[in-house]
């Protein structure tokens, strides 16, 4: 008798668990969900216009369709679309957030707070700025795109179309720059291209969630290198030689010299020689290359310092020497007086099948 009772109890417990475990109240079949990969966002007179790029399964392969709606808030617009679509919109697999340049210039603090707060949007989604109106942009890339692949996403995938002069900044990094005292980010800018589907035109400098300037792809490479991304594969072209970067490493040290913050940064660059003209020697190549990087860095640093955006996170190196209260105004106060000594050390790893003169 007791055995029966125990089995009964166990069965009841298990049955309840199974019943609860199915989660029948919120179950939606996968074919009743739309899983957008790209979300586009631009401002309108009152609020935002949201674009969603949805894959649409067909009999063979998938098609892509772009839907849009306007609303006072982002959720309102998404809700509007979900209402009109025959399936539920599920933002769980969102990979790219495309922001129109005007919105970026106005400031995206609120927008990114929403992205971080929203439970279903991954903070790992990439942030990209679009240099043209989103409606024609989506139309153009839609015409060209091979429907079986998501071009926009592949463009930024490290194992596909990414190259070292494209910045990769994610939602959480942009959100961090909104609040952090000593750290800003850059975000890639794209537009639809004339030959290729997408054209990368450089990066936007984002300070506290607002776009304050633009930098070129070459300068973005410097940003990437400073952030620990190695610039492997990038071709550097000089007046009469070109090399391929095979490895980069940055060492840096900041200290206070009386009242002025000073910083030593050294870029260690390993390159492979590819092309040479006019009997260049290795020494000349090395000198030219380091001069090229130095002048590029100096120009870029001057620009972002004027924009008060610390994209190299130099302020991080002063956390040791500057108290927190002063760090709070780092961008306004000390960053403006920061003196950076930038050096490049070039090592030529190899020069291919042809011998080169040393000196």
């Amino acid at each position, binding site marked *: 008798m007791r055995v029966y009772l125990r089995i009964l109890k166990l069965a009841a417990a298990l049955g309840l668990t199974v019943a609860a475990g199915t989660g029948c109240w919120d179950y939606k079949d996968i074919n009743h969900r739309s899983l957008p990969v790209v979300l586009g966002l631009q401002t309108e007179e009152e609020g935002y216009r949201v674009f969603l790029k949805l894959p649409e399964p067909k009999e063979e392969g998938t098609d892509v369709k772009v839907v849009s709606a306007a609303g006072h808030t982002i959720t309102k617009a998404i809700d509007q679309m979900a209402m009109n679509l025959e399936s539920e919109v599920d933002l769980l697999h969102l990979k790219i957030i495309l922001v129109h340049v005007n919105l970026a210039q106005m400031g995206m603090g609120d927008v990114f707070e929403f992205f971080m707060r929203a439970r279903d949007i991954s903070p790992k989604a990439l942030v990209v700025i679009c240099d043209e109106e989103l409606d024609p942009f989506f139309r153009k890339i839609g015409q060209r795109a091979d429907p079986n692949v998501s071009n926009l996403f592949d463009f930024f995938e490290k194992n596909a179309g990414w190259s070292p002069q494209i910045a990769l900044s994610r939602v959480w990094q942009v959100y961090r720059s909104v609040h952090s005292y000593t750290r800003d980010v850059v975000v890639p800018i794209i537009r639809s291209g004339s030959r290729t589907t997408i054209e990368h035109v450089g990066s936007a400098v984002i300070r506290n969630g607002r776009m304050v300037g633009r930098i070129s792809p070459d300068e973005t490479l410097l940003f990437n290198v400073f952030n620990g991304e190695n610039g492997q594969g990038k071709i550097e072209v000089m007046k009469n030689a070109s090399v391929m970067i095979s490895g980069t490493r940055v060492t840096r040290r900041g200290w206070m010299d009386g009242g002025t913050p000073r910083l030593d940064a050294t870029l260690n660059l390993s390159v492979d020689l590819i092309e040479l003209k006019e009997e260049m020697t290795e020494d000349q190549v090395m000198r030219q290359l380091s001069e090229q990087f130095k002048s590029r860095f100096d120009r870029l640093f001057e620009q972002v310092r004027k924009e008060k955006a610390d994209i190299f996170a130099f302020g991080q190196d002063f956390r*040791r020497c500057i108290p927190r209260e002063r760090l709070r105004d780092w961008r306004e106060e000390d960053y403006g007086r920061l003196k950076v000594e930038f050096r490049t050390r070039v090592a030529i790893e190899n020069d291919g099948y042809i011998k080169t003169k040393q000196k």
Partner: protein
Amino acid sequence: MSRSVHVLLFYFVAHLGLIFFIYPEDIIACAEEGHWVPILVGFAVHVFFLWLFVKGLSLGGNRDMVSLYLGLGKAPAVLLLLPVFVYYAMVDVITVRAYSEIVSIVFLEKTPLWAVMALLFLIPVWLANVGIRPIFYATALVAIVCLPLFLFIFAASFQSVDWRYFFPLFDRHYDFLWDSSFYKSFFAFAGVFLFLGFVQPYFTFRIRGLMWASVLLVPFFLFSVYIPVLTFGEATASNFHYPFVVTLDTLQINWLMFERVTVFFLMSLLTFVMLLVALVLWQSVELAVRFFPRMNRGWTLLVLSAIVFGCCLRIRSWHDIELLFMWNTWIRAYIMLVVPATVYWIGRRAKKEPDYESISTNS
């Protein structure tokens, strides 16, 4: 395997379940810089009173806590242990409610909260019903499955840390001592260790082993706070509920077939928490039954669970949980400070009076 291992494992694992959610938020809220100071201060307080507690237990002849208190007479024992009973009920309510809230934030956003709570509560109730031994054996089993997973994700969470955020190293003001969040953070310590006062007749443990287990917890206490701080910086991390969980969401592990490791992390810690709730329930019942031997175990558990679950359902917002946290700060202080101190005192007294033992075994 010696029986001591189960106890130490439970101590370790139950703390892990509590550390990673509410604790980092409280510590980040209570200090702007130099977070390691409040963490280590809290930990030192915990370890000192833990030592006092287990020392008292061993002086008292390795009996359980309730019989030690009963040596003082029934009325004082009831008075002294009543706060423990109340605190246990609150621990049940808070953990079940808070953790189901986390589950619904992280991955079951459309599931009604009562269903999540029911699942989270039914299993512990069932475990508490079967007794303390199965709970400990289940702990060992769950730890074998979940600990490696947990450790892997914990190691992976160092992915985007920037060690420079560690500075400034020192807080100049030490304001945290006046901050209520600091005292709230003791929730991570106070909920667990009293179980050591209940395990004695069933399981034994060695004090030195226990101390090592608690030392092993230090890196987890430190990094549960520091991983969000090092990834986001204090200024950003202080905006988050569950900073550690947010940090997990930013992990990028391409070769893993699962995109969100957060869910796995949460599930493994959730099982630890369920074991903790089960043991706490069992202890509550044990307390009640020891004082009123006429009570039936099963019914007591059922009534208690119904009350706890009712309370869980009554709590409507996160704000209420925070209030509950604030209210039980005083009981928590009692649990953390007064209970170990009195146990030590009783243990010392018991050691001095050789006939004490015979009295207590009769009662």
